[in-house]
């Protein structure tokens, strides 16, 4: 029998006084490792002479781009929630046809690098773009401009809403629907039941996902540049690419982003609200869409169409227009696929392992140290990739020379960068588990580790796999850190796409992009199929 535990009932597990030793030590180690690069950044950033720093920061131009970024981030986050949450509900709780297929497709935009997506949109909808050429005979002279804030928000939303989707989905999967049934018997309509029962329990997951979206939008270089929108990252980019003091200045500005991240994190903890724990995670109730069943397919189909078909179509167009004009150096090799998948899988595994103690502590124990560890895990995510890459180059060459430019340091870099994706997803899953269950297992003779393995772990599986999926997909398309820390000669699909793109041979970017999509989709399918633990 499942009951919604009230905070009073399990006061025993909300331990203010005592944190379990092993998870705490593990969390502290992970948090320290993640903080190391940032410490170097702080040291280097403050090498900049205070006068030039103050001068740059107080310029009205700097304030303007900062506000631009703020507006963009707010819009992208709002839009992602509006898209991600209903879609998650649609694919988890309703009887949508081909739900599994749509699950993969809806999450797939995550694998497309932002500059490819932005570039494709400009090619499709910009002046003299593909759509313009198609509509010209009909007499349409010019389309509304794709550049600027609307375009940047559109592109960023389309390629980051999967964060909200995946985390919300994981929460809904471990959601105890008997509560909803109970509400329905008490004469609540579906909408009221959603508002009063489902939403408060799903809210932490939505908050976790939106946090990822907000921070990603804040630190993204490519999209604002291509959409000709003056975001804060543009300033960092220009500084980074000028020599002399530029490097330190870029680092100082990145620290500003970190400061903003801390602000956003505080905001999010307010929005998170009281975190109610739930019951046994039964998900048997399915909402019947009835007449809307097939028309409901329009929503994911439209979304997939815009976010996936546009870049694919553009790329295929370039390919058909005869892209491959360069020599052997741009030929695609199977090893790129193996490298991409291998290193992304390693990153996903490492991140899950690293994040597990942090997520567990943060969910189970209402202790300032536990939430501090969790906050720290976000710091690496907020730093722009190039800057973080540089920090790890320094740490690698100064303190860890044997592993510099090896895969070990590279995977570590991915962990630092993407830890919050795993932590957020796992933490919300841990919240779903009624602590009475592992306690019951303990009274039946299991050790605490055994109780964790046999009782808690299967229950949090959706969160684990959701986090793994996120990290896997994001690593598949990660560029900046990979460029700096990869072993020389280590080639991945994304590096290949970037090389072709940078050199202007867009046709050569088409095949690897298609393969990237295909491989990521397949891998997603495999990962998500492991989610299906049925707890009786």
């Amino acid at each position, binding site marked *: 029998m499942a009951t919604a535990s009230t905070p009073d009932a399990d006061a025993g597990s909300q331990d203010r006084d005592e944190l379990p030793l092993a998870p705490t030590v593990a969390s502290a180690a992970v948090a320290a490792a993640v903080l190391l690069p940032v410490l170097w950044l702080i040291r280097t950033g403050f090498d900049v002479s205070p006068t030039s720093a103050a001068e740059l920061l107080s310029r009205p131009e700097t304030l303007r781009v900062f506000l631009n970024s703020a507006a963009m981030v707010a819009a992208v986050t709002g839009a992602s929630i509006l898209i991600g949450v209903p879609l998650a509900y649609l694919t988890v709780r309703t009887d949508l046809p081909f739900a599994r297929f749509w699950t993969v497709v809806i999450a797939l935009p995550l694998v497309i690098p932002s500059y490819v997506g932005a570039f494709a949109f400009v090619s499709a909808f910009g002046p003299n773009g593909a759509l313009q050429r198609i509509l010209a005979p009909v007499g349409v002279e010019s389309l509304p401009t794709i550049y600027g804030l609307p375009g940047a928000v559109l592109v960023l939303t389309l390629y980051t809403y999967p964060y909200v989707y995946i985390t919300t989905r994981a929460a809904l999967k471990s959601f105890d629907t008997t509560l909803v049934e109970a509400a329905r018997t008490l004469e609540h309509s579906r909408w009221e039941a959603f508002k009063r029962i489902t939403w408060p329990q799903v809210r932490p997951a939505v908050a976790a996902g939106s946090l990822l979206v907000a921070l990603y939008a804040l630190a993204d270089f490519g999209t604002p540049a291509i959409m000709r929108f003056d975001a804060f990252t543009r300033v960092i980019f220009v500084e980074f690419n000028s020599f002399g003091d530029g490097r330190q200045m870029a680092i100082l500005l990145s620290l500003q982003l970190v400061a903003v991240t801390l602000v956003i994190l505080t905001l999010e903890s307010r929005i998170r609200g009281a975190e109610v724990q739930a019951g046994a995670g039964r998900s048997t109730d399915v909402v019947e869409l009835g007449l809307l069943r097939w028309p409901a397919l329009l929503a994911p189909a439209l979304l997939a169409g815009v976010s996936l078909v546009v870049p694919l179509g553009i790329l295929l167009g370039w390919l058909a227009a005869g892209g491959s004009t360069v020599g*052997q150096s741009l030929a695609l090799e*199977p090893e790129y696929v193996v490298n991409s998948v291998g290193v992304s899988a390693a990153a996903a595994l490492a991140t899950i392992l690293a994040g597990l103690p942090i997520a567990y502590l943060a969910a189970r124990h209402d202790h300032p140290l536990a939430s501090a560890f969790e906050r720290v895990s976000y710091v690496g995510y907020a730093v722009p990739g190039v800057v973080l890459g*540089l920090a790890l180059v320094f740490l690698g060459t100064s303190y860890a020379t044997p592993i*510099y430019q090896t895969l070990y340091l590279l995977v570590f870099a991915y962990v630092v960068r993407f830890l919050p994706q795993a932590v957020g997803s796992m933490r919300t899953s841990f919240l779903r588990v009624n602590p009475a269950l592992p306690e019951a297992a303990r009274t039946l003779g299991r050790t605490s580790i055994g109780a964790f393995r046999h009782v808690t772990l299967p229950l949090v599986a959706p969160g684990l796999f959701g986090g793994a999926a996120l990290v896997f997909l994001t690593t598949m398309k990660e560029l900046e850190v990979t460029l700096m820390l990869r072993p020389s000669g280590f080639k991945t699909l994304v590096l290949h796409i970037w*090389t*072709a793109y940078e050199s202007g041979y867009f046709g*050569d970017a088409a095949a690897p992009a298609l393969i990237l999509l295909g491989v990521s989709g397949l891998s997603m399918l*495999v990962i998500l199929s492991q989610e299906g633990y049925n707890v009786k």
Partner: protein
Amino acid sequence: MDDDSASRRRTRRRFLGTGASLGIAALAGCTDAFDSGEETTESPDGDGGTSAQIGSGRSPFSDRENVGGTPMSEMPPMSGELTVYSGRGEPLVGTLIDYIEELYPDLTIRPRYDSAANLVNQIITEGQNSPADAFYSVNAGSLGALKDEGRTEALPDEVLSMVPEAFRDPDGTWIGTSGRARAIPYNTDEWSESDIPTDISAFPDQEQFRDDVGWAPTYSSFQAFVTAMRVLQGDEATREWLQGMLDLGVKEYSDEFLVAQAVADGEISVGFGNHYYTLRVQAGRDDPPIDLAFTENDAGAMFNVAGAAVLDTAGDADLAANFVRHLLSSEAQDYFARETFEYPLVPDVDPIGSLPSIDELNPPEELDLTQLSDLEGTIELMREVGVL
């Protein structure tokens, strides 16, 4: 019940696993279809010093046979391991490096590709533990930046003498391998060459270009051009020029290849860019309405070079210097001319197609390319005016 679902799960897992691996294998197999392998034509001759051709041996503009300069067969052989940090892209440099590696059986070259700015930052951050031996860059500014940080070593005189003085560092710490001229791509449907001013300072006054001109201010070559203008004409004049262009309604693009494409598309009719982007557009399309005009004796006609340097962290400095020497061989110089339409810097190798020869260009004579490393001041200025 449990057995049923468990066994169903196992079968499902196996099916998915097999399906996934088959899918990936099939995809990987399919990639052969995308192999656009071009063979290198001829192997180098042992005697007589005839040079071979690297790459496709075909250019959209003209075929040509043997060129002047020093062939690789007359250069000291290379052996050992070399790590090269290359700010020039893999499609270009990869073919060249593969060719050199195949030439010497005991040689292994480990190239690392990234943007020049990233690599400079990386080399500086790596410090003395850097694995890099040589640095090959797309513009002189980054080479100057490394020299300013004291990370470069002087090249041997016999390498330095292969290229005219104007195209290398006066202190001998880096040498240019190929050049690019700043130029004005223009749309031939709208203008003829005589319509384009030959004085860069005149551009803000050209009413006929209002809202019809484009540039790429975040692009490194453009910033080098602005730096040159600052060096030659001073900050005040540069500020006025930038402001004048903004008032003229100049359009911004994220790189100069896009500017050239926009000119050919008719989106704008005039632009600022490196000469080879226009040639690439001409090579990639069927007779597009775009051609090049050049200004004279000012920053707008600046001639910048891609170049290479030996780093102070080089394991074998002689090997690294020899690598730089091979970039100046007739094969390599000819390759740059044919593949990326750049200007060879070795005097006896001609540029491709109908490009004016270096003598016919009029770059500003007083410009020292190492001064282009002062990018910070340029960024400042561009920010002040509101270009960046």
